[in-house]
């Protein structure tokens, strides 16, 4: 989770990832951010997030993203 938070801070400086679980719905992070984040996650966690995974539910909060990583077999 810490690694994920580091990635998030790095990709989207200034966004408070802990305070919201509507990151996508409220347009706090955009598809551009998502793509950047996914790129980082894929290389850092060694997982392969596919297009089908790119739905708001998986990116609305840091926890949701972490859950996705775990589901794809990339958790610590």
């Amino acid at each position, binding site marked *: 989770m810490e690694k994920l938070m580091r990635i998030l801070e*790095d*990709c989207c*400086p*200034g966004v408070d990832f802990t305070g919201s679980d509507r990151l996508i719905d409220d*347009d706090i992070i*955009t*598809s*551009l951010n998502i*793509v*950047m984040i*996914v*790129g*980082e996650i*894929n*290389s850092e966690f060694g997982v392969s*997030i*596919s*297009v*089908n995974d*790119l739905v708001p539910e998986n990116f609305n909060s840091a926890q949701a993203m972490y859950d996705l990583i775990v589901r794809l077999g990339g958790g610590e």
Partner: protein
Amino acid sequence: MSIMSGVFLLFLAAAVAVYYLTPKKVRWLVLLAASAVFYLSASVKAGAYLLLTIAVTYAAARVLGALLERERAALAVPGAPAAQLRRRGLRRRRLVLAGALVLNFGTLAVLKYLDSWLASAQRLLGLTAPRLGLLLPLGISFYIFQTSGYLMDVYRGKIKPERNLLKYALFTAWFPQMVQGPINRYDKLAPQLFAGNDFDPDGVKYGLQLILWGMLKKMLIADKLAPGVNAVFADPTAYTGAITGLAAVLYSIQLYCDFSGGVDLVRGASRLFGVDMAENFNRPYFAVSIDDFWRRWHISLGEWMKDYLFYPLALSKPLNRLGKRLRGVFGRRAGQLFVPCVSTVLVFLAVGLWQGPGFGNIAYGLWNGGLMSLGMICAPACARLRAALRLRDDSKLLRIFRSLRTFALVAIGRCFSQAPTFRLGVWMLAHTVAAFGPKDPALLVSFGIGSVDWIVALTALAVVFAVSLAGERGVSVRAWLDRRHPVLQFAVVFLAVLIIVAGLSEGYVPISYVYENI
């Protein structure tokens, strides 16, 4: 029939009446019949193209569905070679999808561009041959996008393919979406179409309000500004910089009122049947950045591009491998940004090419994609700058500045594609700055827009702006109006209908929608 006509409104009223008078089970057939009447009244030949697309995509989706079923069944067998099965299944599905998409977009490209390609080839070779004069079926871009999205959803296993061909035909040819979108998703639209909706007074009322609002925007603003804008863009060199600049601004206003007005009208029409179509606009000119703008303008296209082009590109292996390699050369940050930036530029190139042939449209795509990438690259620097200037993110002045800046950037991009040639578009912009001087103020009112039209357009624009501003602040003018005295409500509706009836009968020559022939 033009949707801006009394005939269409009468047709709509009749269709609504029949819909609610029919037993629920067969109501969807009423929608199909209405769609067929609407589409075939425009052109029977275009109907043939539509039928072809319906048949091809229906069949391809069924095949994709069958392949998926088979794959799942095979995987369910214990001890099956999962990886191998998946790979093989994927390969087959890909082949079918690719074939169907090529056919789909190939039809679009041929009908849209073959003539212009042939013309340039002829120019190049110095030949003269007759134009093919291919017919561009009404709404072809939109139903091609919609059916392609549907195919990809089936391919991804997100939805099950529709088995009933007639139902599928209704999904593809639902008449309100056939003029200029919005591009609807199967999982959202189809259930509403097939359900046999109850008469919902709130929804019907909302639908009627949307229709009035959309027609007024089109008639009172877009159509009034169009002659002036067209005159200047047709020959910018004839005007001083102030006028070319003004025309660029007016074009943005015209385009919004035209496009969103048309979409309001058709969404309203759809709503009369209890069918809620995708949103297409969210007060785009209040956007604070290009990125924001594209999430508020032509939303259904933006979403489509995101889901079916941007994400696949951004997650594609070759692009990511390249990004990783660059990370080694130019550092982490560059590597991070590479994939989203390249994908963005490619997506906007696609949007530009979809708009039309010619370098102007390519420039339009590069401009928007480039600006969006630039915004991402500069985001940290901008944040630091704001901090240094002690600008609060929620400062009103900053907000206004950002909206105006976004508006200007968008308007500039449109000059590239809207001017007769890219070169003229650039000239227009340079001219606006270099030769701004309004030599003769009278010229301001004499480039195709009469003084009465100016007053009408500006008054209506003020109303639209006020309503949008209220909306941006979370105030719904519609809800506010609902609470007013019935007499006032009656007066407002009466006035709206009066303007429409007075303007929209015999003798009114509808100016076709900007996006109607795309």
